[in-house]
């Protein structure tokens, strides 16, 4: 009888342990880089740092302070403003671009797809630097056009223009990215559905309302939720564009306020509290969105 060599005996046990070994890297990394920091930050939100070496238990004191903090509410309003701008401006533009690029009548689709997608390949920091020049008060591209209306707008210098400037920059950067999702969704809709609608006498708009949109529902839900989460986590773009959220915190967002508290003010407990409040806001909004879009519904 032929026996297996020693080398092979080593692997006899592999069937039992291999699955655990394969999934182990994820769990190890998750525990080290996600699980531990998550729990640690939750604990931290109940404390406040006393310098570098010690901390003091404050219970829900940080949460109470946060809800009374006018800069937090202003940052929340700005963040909501950006999210609303993203949902009402950026996503319709992305859908429109996708429909155009999916139509038979547009030429050079591949080049256009690349052109619209390209901004997302540029790091946020560079986008902010580029748009700093675009919004330049004296010689910027935007004011070069608007100056004819008689006003030299301080896009990054006047309270009311800061968030619109950030939203427009967000549209430039992300509309092409979301367009790709919509395009993939559009290409997955069966042609027969349009043919059947045409047989029933539906015009283009009716076909869009009753065939395209319902078929795109899962994609729309995904893009809405992901865009909403991204909007609520906005940081680098306004931070660089407005040089730290000024004037008068007009460009401040929740994550920017978190950063300031954690790193500039050395109030790590308060920063952790902001992080957890942001987590709950994102979780609630995402669940509501998914519910409204019928993702939990049984088909």
């Amino acid at each position, binding site marked *: 009888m032929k026996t297996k060599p020693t*080398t092979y005996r080593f*692997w006899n046990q592999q069937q039992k342990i291999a699955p655990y070994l394969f999934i182990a890297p994820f769990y190890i990394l998750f525990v080290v880089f996600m699980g531990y920091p998550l729990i640690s930050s939750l604990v931290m939100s109940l404390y406040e740092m*006393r310098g570098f070496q010690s901390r003091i238990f404050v219970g829900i004191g940080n949460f109470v302070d946060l809800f009374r903090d006018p800069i937090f509410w202003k940052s929340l309003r700005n963040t909501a403003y950006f999210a609303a701008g993203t949902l009402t401006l950026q996503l319709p533009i992305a859908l429109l671009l996708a429909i155009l690029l999916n139509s038979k009548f547009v030429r050079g689709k591949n080049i256009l797809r690349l052109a619209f997608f390209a901004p997302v390949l540029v790091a946020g920091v560079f986008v902010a630097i580029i748009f700093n020049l675009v919004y*330049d008060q004296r010689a910027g591209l935007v004011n070069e056009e608007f100056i004819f209306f008689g006003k030299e707008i301080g896009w990054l210098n006047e309270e009311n223009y800061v968030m619109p400037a950030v939203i427009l920059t967000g549209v430039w950067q992300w509309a092409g990215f979301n367009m790709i999702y919509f395009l993939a969704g559009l290409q997955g809709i069966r042609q027969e559905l349009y043919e059947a609608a045409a047989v029933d006498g539906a015009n283009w708009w009716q076909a869009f309302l009753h065939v395209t949109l319902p078929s795109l529902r899962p994609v729309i839900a995904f893009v809405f939720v992901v865009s909403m989460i991204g909007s609520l986590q906005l940081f680098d773009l306004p931070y660089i564009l407005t040089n730290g959220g000024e004037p008068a915190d007009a460009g401040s967002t929740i994550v920017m306020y978190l950063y300031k508290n954690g790193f500039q003010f*050395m109030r790590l407990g308060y920063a952790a509290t902001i992080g957890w409040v942001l987590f709950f806001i994102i979780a609630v909004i995402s669940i509501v969105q998914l519910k409204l879009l019928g993702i939990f519904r049984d088909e």
Partner: protein
Amino acid sequence: MFRLPIDAESFPLGKGPMVMLVLFLVSTLFIFGRSEEAGENLEFWIFANTHYEEYQARVPIFEAQNPGVNVQLINFGNTMHDKLLAAMLSNFGAPDLVEVEITSIGRFLKGAIDEVGFVDLRPRLESEGWMEKLVVSRFTPWSYRGKIFGIPHDLHPVVLLYRDDLFKAAGVEMTEVETWDDFIVAGKKATRDLDGDGEIDQYAIVLDRRTESDYFSLLLQQGGGFFDEEGNVIIDSELAIETLEFFTALFNEHEIATPVYGTWHGDPSNFAAMQDGKILSILSPDWYVGILKSQVPQMSGKWKAIPMPAWHPGGRRTTTRGGTMIGMTTQCTNPDKAWELLKFTYFDRPGLVNRYETTRIIPPLKSAWDAPIFKEPDPYLGGQPLGDLFIELAPDLPPRYQNPYWSEGADLLNDAIFAAVTEKQTPRAALTELAEKVRALIAKDQGRWGEL
């Protein structure tokens, strides 16, 4: 014969993953098995490119003078302060020496004074007699509760840079301006609508209303501040309120100031406005002249400088803005050698002359001021010896007291200034509200853990 319990064929998923695993293990061995270089190592963190370039050129000289010492210079740019904060929080990984920027030092002073992550350098400075050799008021930004946590890299005196040609065209001789009242009279003549379209084409001065930079410079010139030496909040003092009233009046009542174009004085938009002749003067620290030279070299010869106008005849003609310190961290493993490197980079005359050549920064070491370079005519200022002017003003620099709550205070001060200039609040109301907020913040912390 000895055989490994595995071979390429029997490895799960074949040769590829096995090669990757072997490479991973070997590289891990390299990382963890990396031996320290022989000799004494000093790590020095920097955030400013110009400083990094200066030290990079000079460190080999120090290493040659100190055989066996290896200096590792690391330039982290703007993220350096956050990295330092993390290293101090974790009590691991901080460098031996580090440069810290003036608006960032406050956060490092929070908590008990004995737990601050920097070594008190007062004993070394005093025992070696360095205090007398440096401008004493420049230690205030880096000192707290009697301890000196850093040595000043610079003085950053401020002058008034102005467009001589455009003021003269408006019939104003700026060298005759001695007080801010004189400046307002001159500014009203020079602020003009040149083409008659109802829009002002040139403003006497550009001021930042988004941040505390210009207002706080004026307040320091008056002898005020945000905190006093004992750490009390004094931003609602009559002096501070009067200064903000004056600041807002330059925009709203006298209409001779324009808000900074873009997000700060170094914004390309601001430089464009200067080149268009829209801005006739600016409060400029020494470092800003260096920025102007590098960013708008085409304006060479167009600027001139005078001391800042005084608040009262015979009063202080300068202030200070910005600054950097060098500190030794409590994690430093070789304090004596680190101290030698510190002295070499901050107190060495040839190095300080070289620093002025490249950055226009005036050193705090008084014995370096007689170097010929400071008296040389500066072509950028039409031949005016700018170094001489800065040095003449340096002994009169106002103190700028440091406090752990500076970052929070400055953030709120930005809002108060903007609210006052845009007339949403009166200067008194804005500063009173600000002071109450900061006092409440400090009181809350003290209520939680008592006096520190």
